[in-house]
C-alpha cells in the first residue's frame, strides 16, 4: 500500500524511551479528538422515565423473591417417590425454575438499575507505566545489594553452592514416596485368564457355549469360565474379553501356524482394541469387519483381524479354540501375544 519509506522510529513514553520495534510511528498521524461528548439518556432527562425505570427494577427484585419462594414451595410440593421416577423430573424442573427466577430477578434488576439510573458518563483515569520510577528501581537494587552484602550470598560461594545442591535434592524423596501408588506391572499385561481347556462362556452370566450354538452369522460376547468368581473380575475381564463368530470356513484366510486355531469356521478374537483398548465389538455380518466405536479402527475378521482402517496398527490377537468332549468350546491356550493397547516392552 502506501508505505513511503518512513524510518523506524522510537516511541516516546512519559518517562522512558521504548523501542517501537518495527512499528511505524507516523509524525503526521491524525490527532486524537478526545472523548466523545456524553449522550444524555431519557432517564436523565425525564423524571417520568426515571420513575418508570425505578418501578421496573423494583419489579425484578420482587420477581426474584417470588422465584425463591416458589423454589422453597417446590422443594416440598414435589417430593421424590421411589416408585415413580417422573417425580424426579418434576422436582428437578420446578425447583430449578424457581431458583432460576430468584437469580434472574436479582441479576437483571441490578443491571437494569446500573444502566438506567446510575451515571453513564464514561470517565478517564490516568494509567501509569507498570515499571517503577527510576527512584523506586534504584532503591530496589540498593535493597538487593544490601541483602547480598549482609548475607554474603555472592561472596560465600561454598554456602551458596551447597544450598543449590540441597534444594535440588530435597524434592527427590517427595517424588519417590509415590512409588507405592502401583506395583511393577511385570508380566501381568502379557497374560490373561485363558488356559488350555478353559471353557468359553457367555458374557455376562458365564454359561458355556456349544459349537453347535454358534450358527452362521451369529456373534457371541465371551468371557472365560470362572471369571465371575475371580477376585479381580474387572481387571481379568479387561484383558480376557473375546468375540466369537462363525463364518464359512472357506473364506477364512488362515496362516499355516494358525490352521488349527479355529473350529469349523468358528473363530475367537480378543475384543480389546490394539489401539487404546476400547471394546471392538461391532461385527458386520456380511463384510466380516469389526469396528471399534471409539476411534473407528476396523479389522478384517476373515484375514486374521488385520487392520483395514483407522488408527490401530496391530491385528486383534486370536484365541486358539477347539471343543471338549461334551462339545463345548474351550481355549487351546492363552493368547500367544499380549492383548490390548501396545506398550513399549510387549
Amino acid at each position, binding site marked *: 500500500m502506501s508505505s513511503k519509506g518512513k524510518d523506524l522510529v522510537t516511541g516516546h513514553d512519559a518517562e522512558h524511551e521504548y523501542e517501537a520495534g518495527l512499528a511505524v510511528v507516523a509524525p503526521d498521524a491524525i490527532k486524537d479528538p478526545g472523548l466523545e461528548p456524553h449522550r444524555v439518556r431519557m432517564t436523565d432527562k425525564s423524571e417520568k422515565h426515571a420513575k418508570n425505570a425505578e418501578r421496573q427494577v423494583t419489579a425484578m427484585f420482587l420477581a426474584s423473591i417470588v422465584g425463591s419462594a416458589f423454589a422453597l414451595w417446590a422443594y416440598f410440593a414435589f417430593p421424590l417417590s*421411589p416408585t415413580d421416577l417422573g417425580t424426579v423430573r418434576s422436582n428437578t424442573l420446578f425447583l430449578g425454575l424457581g431458583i432460576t427466577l430468584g437469580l434472574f430477578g436479582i441479576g437483571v434488576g441490578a443491571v437494569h438499575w446500573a444502566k438506567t439510573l446510575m451515571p453513564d458518563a464514561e470517565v478517564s483515569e490516568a494509567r501509569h507505566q507498570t515499571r517503577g520510577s527510576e527512584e523506586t528501581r534504584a532503591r530496589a537494587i540498593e535493597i538487593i545489594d544490601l541483602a547480598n552484602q549482609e548475607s554474603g550470598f555472592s561472596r560465600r560461594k561454598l554456602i551458596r553452592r551447597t544450598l543449590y545442591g540441597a534444594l535440588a535434592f530435597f524434592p527427590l524423596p517427595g517424588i519417590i514416596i509415590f512409588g507405592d501408588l502401583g506395583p511393577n506391572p511385570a508380566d501381568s499385561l502379557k497374560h490373561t485368564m485363558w488356559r488350555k481347556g478353559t471353557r468359553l462362556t457367555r458374557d*455376562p452370566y458365564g454359561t458355556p457355549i456349544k459349537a453347535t450354538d454358534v450358527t*452362521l452369522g451369529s456373534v457371541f460376547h465371551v468371557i472365560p469360565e470362572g471369571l465371575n468368581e475371580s477376585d479381580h473380575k474387572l481387571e481379568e475381564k479387561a484383558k480376557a474379553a473375546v468375540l466369537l463368530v462363525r463364518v464359512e470356513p472357506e473364506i477364512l484366510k488362515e496362516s499355516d501356524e494358525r490352521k488349527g486355531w479355529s473350529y469349523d469356521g468358528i473363530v475367537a478374537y480378543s475384543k480389546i482394541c490394539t489401539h487404546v483398548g476400547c471394546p471392538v465389538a461391532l461385527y*458386520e*455380518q456380511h*463384510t466380516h469387519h469389526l469396528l471399534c466405536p471409539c476411534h473407528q479402527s476396523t479389522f478384517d475378521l476373515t484375514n486374521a483381524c488385520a487392520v483395514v482402517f483407522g488408527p490401530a496398527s496391530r491385528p486383534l490377537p486370536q484365541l486358539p479354540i477347539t471343543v471338549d468332549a461334551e462339545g463345548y468350546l474351550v481355549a487351546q491356550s492363552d493368547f500367544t501375544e499380549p492383548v490390548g493397547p501396545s506398550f513399549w516392552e510387549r
Partner: protein
Amino acid sequence: MFKRKINNARRNPFAAILVIAAGLLVAGGGYAGATAAVSHSTSGAYTADQVTEGSKLFLTNCASCHGKHAEGTNYGPSLIGVGAAAVDFQVGTGRMPGQASGPQLMKKPVQFTTEQTAALAAYVSSLAPGPSVPDERWTSTSGNTTRGGELFRINCAMCHNAVGAGGALTEGKFAPVLKGVEAKHIYEAMVTGPQNMPVFNDANLTPQDKNDIISYLKYMEANPSAGGEELGSLGPVAEGLFLWLFVLGGIVAITIWLGAKSN
C-alpha cells in the same frame, strides 16, 4: 456385601406395603398377559390359503430379485430357510421391497397390508423351516429390565448406543435408532440378523433374554429422562454443541445487552 444407607423413607413400613402391592400388580398383570398370549399364539400356524396367496404376491413383487422359487439371484439373497420372522421384519418395516441401492436398505412406508405380509411370511416359511414370528409373550414389556439392560449393553449398545439412539458402521452403513420400533420387529431383527446385523439365535440369547432386552428398551422409551430434554440421547457431543450454541451463545447475547448504552 456393602450396605447402603441413603434414604430411610424407603424403609418405612408404608413404603414396603406399597412396593409389595405394586409388585403383585405387575406380576399378576404379567401372568395374565402371558397366558393370554399363549392362547393367541400365531407362530408357525399358517393356513394353506395364506401360503397360496403369499406365493402369488411373491411372484409379482419379490421374484425379480429373489428368484421365482426364492432361490436367490445376483440381486437378492435366497430366502429358503430365513423363516417368517425375516419376512415380517423386512416387509413389516418397509425395508422390503427394496429400493435404489445404497449402503443399506432404509426403513420406508410399509407397502403391504398386515394380511399380505402374513401371507408372504406364510409362503417363505413353507419353503424351509426358519425363525417364526415371535409369540406375543416374548414381545411383552414385563421382562426383567435389569437383565435386559445388561444384555443390551453387552450385545447391542456398541452399535445401537446405550439407549438405542443408533450409531455409525463402516462405509455409510449404520445401526438404526430403536426408539419407536415395534417390539416384535426388535425381536425378529435379533433372531434373523437383517443385513449386517449379526444373528442372536436362541442359544445365544434365549427368548426370555430377548424379551428382557425389549422390556428394557420399552422402559427407556416410556420413561423420559428425569433430567429434562434429552438432546437426542447422543451423549457429550450433543451436550457440547448445545452448550456452545445456546448456553454460551445466550450468555454472549446477554453481555451485549449489558454493554449497550441505555436510551
